[in-house]
């Protein structure tokens, strides 16, 4: 045998193939094409495989080629661009879409997320507000609380989000899961380890996805609970992000096979670079910080920070600057902390060390 096809079940693969053939028979059917594209997006999510994002784009490519792509195609492309870290492209699509259809809740939400990732908290908040009218209370609250917690209002944000969760016990699992993870992150930043862990576990009880597992694994690694982190990660080595956390945990435990994991990650980063992409610059910076050269780590962290400015991006830039003894390189991170009034116990301590090393 040469290859096991990746679809979690070949039933899904057969279904997708059948839909693709149906689309080939009706190449002008936009509804069919977007339905297939969303299914690919979904399959990519459950499988963690970026090939599905390409297939989703392929399904709607004919409409994207037109001068004025239909709204459905724009929304899909914005989502795919966000996933490829083409944030500027995603924002353009969303702005065009919202100008045409200001009641598109999904577009507002996606725009809020993109703006938050880029560190534009004012735009993020402005994009969450319409959700109060257009979506459910829990989703709108989660969106707003997330942004507020990053811009100097962590305590009220935590209270509001916890209350919203309590008031919506019957909300769909995906919405509750998102709220729990957001709450866990807010609590972690505020130094409430016990509360954060309870929220991470509540989120994982609803659904196990790569984002939550990564965030919880980072929490456990910071708490020097590497064996718990390893247990959480399980056997899945496919996603690079999870493999990075595994490498860090194995190093802490001096586990056998840790070199093989490092080699594998290095090969994957190299393969991604061959494509001319740097989707993983933040994770690569963490990898270099742990297993490589501090100067390389700093380069990668700066490259990453130019694109993404979430707390984890601030952190890796501060750590890399400290390791490379180049405090000035950390300046953009220090500025973000100052202007956003981001509250994060660990980041505050790191920033103080950077400032005192100048």
């Amino acid at each position, binding site marked *: *045998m040469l290859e096991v096809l990746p679809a979690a079940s070949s039933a899904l693969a057969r279904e997708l193939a059948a839909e693709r053939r149906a689309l080939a028979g009706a190449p002008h059917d936009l509804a069919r094409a977007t339905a297939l594209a969303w299914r690919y997006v979904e399959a990519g999510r459950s499988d963690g495989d*970026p090939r599905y*994002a390409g297939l989703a784009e392929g399904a709607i*490519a004919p409409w994207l080629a037109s001068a004025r792509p239909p709204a459905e195609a724009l929304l899909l492309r914005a989502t795919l661009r966000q*996933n490829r870290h083409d944030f500027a492209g995603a924002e353009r699509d969303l702005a065009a879409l919202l100008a045409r259809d200001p009641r598109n809740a999904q577009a507002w939400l996606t725009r809020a997320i993109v703006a938050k990732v880029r560190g534009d908290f004012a735009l993020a908040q402005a994009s969450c507000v319409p959700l109060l009218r257009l979506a459910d209370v829990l989703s709108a609250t989660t969106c707003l609380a997330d942004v507020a917690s990053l811009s100097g209002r962590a305590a009220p944000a935590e209270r509001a989000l916890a209350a919203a969760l309590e008031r919506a016990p019957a909300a*769909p699992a995906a919405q509750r899961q998102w709220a729990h993870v957001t709450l866990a992150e807010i609590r972690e930043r505020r130094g409430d380890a016990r509360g954060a862990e309870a929220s991470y576990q509540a989120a994982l009880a609803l659904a196990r996805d790569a*984002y939550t597992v990564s965030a919880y694994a980072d929490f456990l690694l910071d708490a020097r609970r590497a064996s718990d982190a390893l247990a959480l990660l399980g056997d899945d080595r496919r996603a690079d*992000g999870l493999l990075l956390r595994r490498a860090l945990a194995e190093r802490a435990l001096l586990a056998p096979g840790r070199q093989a994991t490092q080699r594998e990650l290095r090969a994957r980063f190299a393969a*991604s670079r061959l494509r001319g992409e740097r989707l993983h610059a933040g994770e690569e910076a963490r990898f270099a910080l742990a297993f490589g050269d501090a100067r390389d780590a700093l380069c990668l962290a700066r490259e990453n920070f130019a694109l993404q400015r979430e707390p984890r991006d601030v952190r890796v830039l501060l750590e890399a600057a400290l390791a490379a003894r180049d405090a000035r390189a950390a300046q953009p991170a220090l500025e973000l902390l100052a202007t956003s009034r981001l509250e994060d116990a660990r980041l505050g301590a790191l920033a103080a060390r950077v400032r005192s090393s100048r």
Partner: protein
Amino acid sequence: MTRARWLLALVLALGVPLAAHAHKASDAYLSLAVDGANARGQWDIALRDLELAVGLDADADGRIRWGELRARRSAVDAYALSHLRVTAAGRACNARVASHQVDAHTDGAYAVLALEIACPDDAALALDYDLLFALDPQHRGLVRVSRGGEIASAVLSPAQPRLALTRSPSRWRAFTDYAREGIWHIWIGFDHVLFLLCLLLPAVVRRSEGRWLPVARGRDAALDALRVVSAFTLSHSLTLALAALGVVALPSRWVESAIAASIVLTALDNLRPFLPARRSAIAFGFGLVHGLGFASVLAELGLPGGARALALVAFNLGVELGQLAIVAAFLPLALALRRSALYPRALLAGGSLAISALASVWLWERALGA
């Protein structure tokens, strides 16, 4: 918007799912080594991508086996080759898949197609690549082309589907290469050097009443040498061009034997003139045969398709330069020694005798294939 879609948006909003924590997006690896108008290459395409494009999993069990891949081999080849267009100065090259293998990459098994590409000539090469783009616009063709020690690489995408190579090696480079080969060939081609010496040895003396006397004025001797060398050059350039361009083709054994014979005859003529012609006429006549000999060397080197005439001229020029160097080294020496009593006897007679003996051996070997 459906409820399911909204939930999906929430899940996606978490930022995880696709590329950020990916296995790997679709890539194919194409490497080519270009040699003149031909190229060999290797094209690694993921089995998963081929499954998508042409269908490999015949029994639909989610697994691809050797037999399944083998059964779809011609479909794979046809699909791959129809999405790679290689052109030389706009003219299509012919590509074929010589063999199949399978190799492992970080994200799974890949079919490895061994490519053989033949172009009409070695003019500016270009690749137009659109494998999988229609299905997956995020597919990338990672291309690497090596040619004459130079390496070009590119990441081909729907936005940038073409890799155009500049003409390389440069025309100037080809010119100097062929000129160097020409010089080299006359220097290591012992038979041409000896023939030239046989022609030049009598240039500084003249025969009078059965005896060799030194030419009184050096200028006359130099002019005589110039006439002889020019005649030789003219005739061998003529046949070199005719043979290199394929107008004349003679078996190399005949040519090589005739070259040896021309040396024997010219050397013997130095001992006691018997050839019924002037020296320059002899040089011209035998030069025709030597030109055919040069052409066989050039045939081994191969003429670059896009610059045949240029390479031919360069090679010829190199031959003349090499020849000029020999003349420049020999003639002053001969002029200085021409009044010595030793010159006619030791150098002219002795040298010619030795050369004719050696060339007779060559003639024997070449004619009989011994």
